[in-house]
């Protein structure tokens, strides 16, 4: 036989447990919009039933139920979705950074517009066309200098902007790494809290939520791997290096970025590679423009100022024929068409003669600001000799020697200017590892660079979009499992409230029953 007061105990248990359940529902409602919060459930079970005591099997019916108890409060969460979310989030971080960077590169190159590299290069070539129209025209010479300076400045400005972009990336990496270090320290701290709480048998639900949020955030920055043993040992590796073991966190440096295979840090590393590639491509353009080997034809002949060899048989003004490949002595007046192989615009310009007397020769059109022979966007500049003196632009290909032995340029000759305008349509060779164009005109090459950049960028924005969709999808699934639904919580609250009310009523019934037994029984005839 159970005790007369068992019913009171049973209903008391019900009251306490339903209160706990309602408390948890309240906690869920309170955190409905907390980032990373996982809804919690009180797991209820019936308490141990009572057997009637007896030497043999009791004849009473049984077992007798003794009420309800709360076993645990647990999070409703799917670890598989977390793994998926973090994997996709790494990819999202990577493409976000890479895409933003490619956007910046596109903005720096500013194509299609008339102010970008295409525009200034067009202007540069056109200025030579004007000079060829009238080689003696001073304003045409001034224009060549202005347009060349413009072009060189644009190259320099593009280079500087790319460098600034690289600097920004370096400082972003440093910022991200310091955020990573803070997160690692927090994760180690939370590991400690969780272990302490759970070693006593509780579930550290809210601490686990916080740790999960940190892991989510970390996964957007760098690729992570983590493991937790059933005993509660937690390890975390980022970019292939273990950085957290239980309550111990290591401090990482910016060097970690080099090992990142995904996440924002890997995105930054790739972004730098993207910048380096575009810079190499444009440097190759500059180098080819200035010194790429090319064959030009001077249809009008040429007067040599130094010994050189032609690619065809040439006739001098005195009728001598010099065969191809044989040295033509300095001072020869070639009257036939002559084909020469020169190194870019500099090589061609060096052949020409300026208009000042005596004839200046061998002036390179572009020089480097650092004295190196390797031209690139940052060091190319208009030869200062030319920039300061329009007469040093060597548009002419002929000079005469006067009776007193002074060389005088034939100023109306624009053969070299004419040959320079033709460079634009010449086919040059380019390093084949940079773009898919290994030979073509300078214009073709620049267009290939831009098209290739556009392809990379549109590819990366498509990837970004895809990755964002994937992350959103997983997040929706996660929310479907773990998110708080207010409607559901409200329904639960009502359920628990009803249970509570009923239990209270039950207690009253038992109370009345006992009252009957204690106060109103055995008083017959009193």
């Amino acid at each position, binding site marked *: 036989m159970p005790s007369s007061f068992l019913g009171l105990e049973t209903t008391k248990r019900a009251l306490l447990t339903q209160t706990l359940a309602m408390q948890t529902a309240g906690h869920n409602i309170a955190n409905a919009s907390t980032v990373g919060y996982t809804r919690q459930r009180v797991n209820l079970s019936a308490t141990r039933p009572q057997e009637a005591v007896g030497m043999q099997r009791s004849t009473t019916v049984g077992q007798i139920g003794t009420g309800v108890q709360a076993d645990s409060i647990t999070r409703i969460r799917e670890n598989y979705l977390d793994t998926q979310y973090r994997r996709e989030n790494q990819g999202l971080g990577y493409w976000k950074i890479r895409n933003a960077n490619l956007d910046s590169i596109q903005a720096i190159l500013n194509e299609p517009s008339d102010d970008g590299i295409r525009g200034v290069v067009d202007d540069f070539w056109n200025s030579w066309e004007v000079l060829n129209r009238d080689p003696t025209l001073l304003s045409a010479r001034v224009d060549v200098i202005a347009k060349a300076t413009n072009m060189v400045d644009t190259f320099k400005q593009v280079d500087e902007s790319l460098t600034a972009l690289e600097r920004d990336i370096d400082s972003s990496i440093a910022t991200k790494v310091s955020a990573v270090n803070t997160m690692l320290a927090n994760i180690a701290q939370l590991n400690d809290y969780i272990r302490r709480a759970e070693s006593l048998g509780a579930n550290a639900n809210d601490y686990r939520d916080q740790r999960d949020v940190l892991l989510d955030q970390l996964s957007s920055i760098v690729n992570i791997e983590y493991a937790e043993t059933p005993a509660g040992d937690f390890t975390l590796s980022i970019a292939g290096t273990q950085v957290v073991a239980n309550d111990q966190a290591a401090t990482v440096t910016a060097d970690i970025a080099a090992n990142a295979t995904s996440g924002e840090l890997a995105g930054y590393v790739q972004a730098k590679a993207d910048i380096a590639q575009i810079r190499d491509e444009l440097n190759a353009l500059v180098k080819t423009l200035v010194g790429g080997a090319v064959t030009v034809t001077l249809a009008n002949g040429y007067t040599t100022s130094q010994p050189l060899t032609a690619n065809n048989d040439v006739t001098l003004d005195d009728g001598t024929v010099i065969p191809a490949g044989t040295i033509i002595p300095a001072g020869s007046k070639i009257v036939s068409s002559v084909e020469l192989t020169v190194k870019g615009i500099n090589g061609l310009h060096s052949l020409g003669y300026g208009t000042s007397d005596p004839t200046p020769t061998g002036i390179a059109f572009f020089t480097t600001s650092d004295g190196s022979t390797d031209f690139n966007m940052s060091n190319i500049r208009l030869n200062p000799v030319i920039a300061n003196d329009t007469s040093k632009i060597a548009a002419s290909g002929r000079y005469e020697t006067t009776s007193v032995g002074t060389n005088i340029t034939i100023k109306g000759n624009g053969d070299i200017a004419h040959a320079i305008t033709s460079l634009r349509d010449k086919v040059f060779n380019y390093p084949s590892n940079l773009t898919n164009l290994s030979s073509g005109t300078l214009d073709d090459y620049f267009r290939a660079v831009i098209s290739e950049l556009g392809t990379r960028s549109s590819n990366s924005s498509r990837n970004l979009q895809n990755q964002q969709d994937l992350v959103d999808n997983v997040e*929706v699934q996660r929310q479907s499992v773990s998110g*708080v639904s207010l409607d559901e919580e409200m329904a639960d609250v009502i359920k628990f409230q009803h249970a509570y009310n009923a239990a209270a009523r039950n207690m009253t019934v038992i109370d009345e029953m006992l009252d009957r037994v204690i106060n109103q029984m055995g008083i017959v005839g009193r």
Partner: protein
Amino acid sequence: MRVTGAMQNIQLLKNLRYNNSAIMDLQDKLATGQKIQRPDDDPVGIGYLMRYNTELSRSDQFLENARTGIGWLNTMDAAMQQANDVLKRAKQLTQQGSTGTVPEEARKQIASEIRQLYEQMVSIGNSTYDGRYIFNGQKTDTAPYTNATAANDKTDPGSYYLNVSPFVTVPVSITGEVIFGKAGDTENVFNVLNDIANHLDSNDQSALLQDLSRIDACSDRISVSWAEVGARTNRFELVVNRLTDEQGNLKNLRSQVNDVDMAQAITDLQLRQNVLQASLATGAQIMRVSLVDFLK
């Protein structure tokens, strides 16, 4: 599927993000009228677009070249017309002078007129276009002929070339010696005029008769060059026509690659705006309904 508030939130935000970015894209296109704002809008199209832009800016130069060529050749044409007139007059006068009935006094007068014609011929030889001597090859900064030594003055043999398309170069100038005769040659026009004046002075009728045929030779030579000038002018005029047509074509092609189809874009924008409005409205509706509203 269990649906929670956060899911609706994520979904709504995603839809809004998607619609808004599409609307921004369309606004950009409508505001600029251009399909290609950045290389990634159309990585292939931008290659074409840049080529058309480059070719248009080049063809402006070619057009300017052709116009300069035409201007230069028109000046040459006028100079040769004058040279021809001078020779005609010289022939008339020489014929007059070669007749026996003309008195010696009159021959002296004719001689002085011939000397005038000689000087006129020298000034024709020194014609300029835009300040540049057109008959001195590439030495456009120096006058080829002087009154004193015109018959023996050498002109520069170089010629002046202009580009009219990437691979086509047209010669413009014809040097003085080709038109007026080689320096010191008997049929050099200055030499001929000089000789006629001298023969008139010296009353040498038979020499004057021979001079007549020398004038014809000069005339023939000038006519040959004159025809060449005409041919070159034609060529440049054709080039101008071709370039003008080509510019039209290029602009057309560029607009095909780069111009926004306004009707299409506006319709798209309207459609997008409707969708955005719908997604905003549904979002607001769904999120407003809650069990809480129905509980007492």
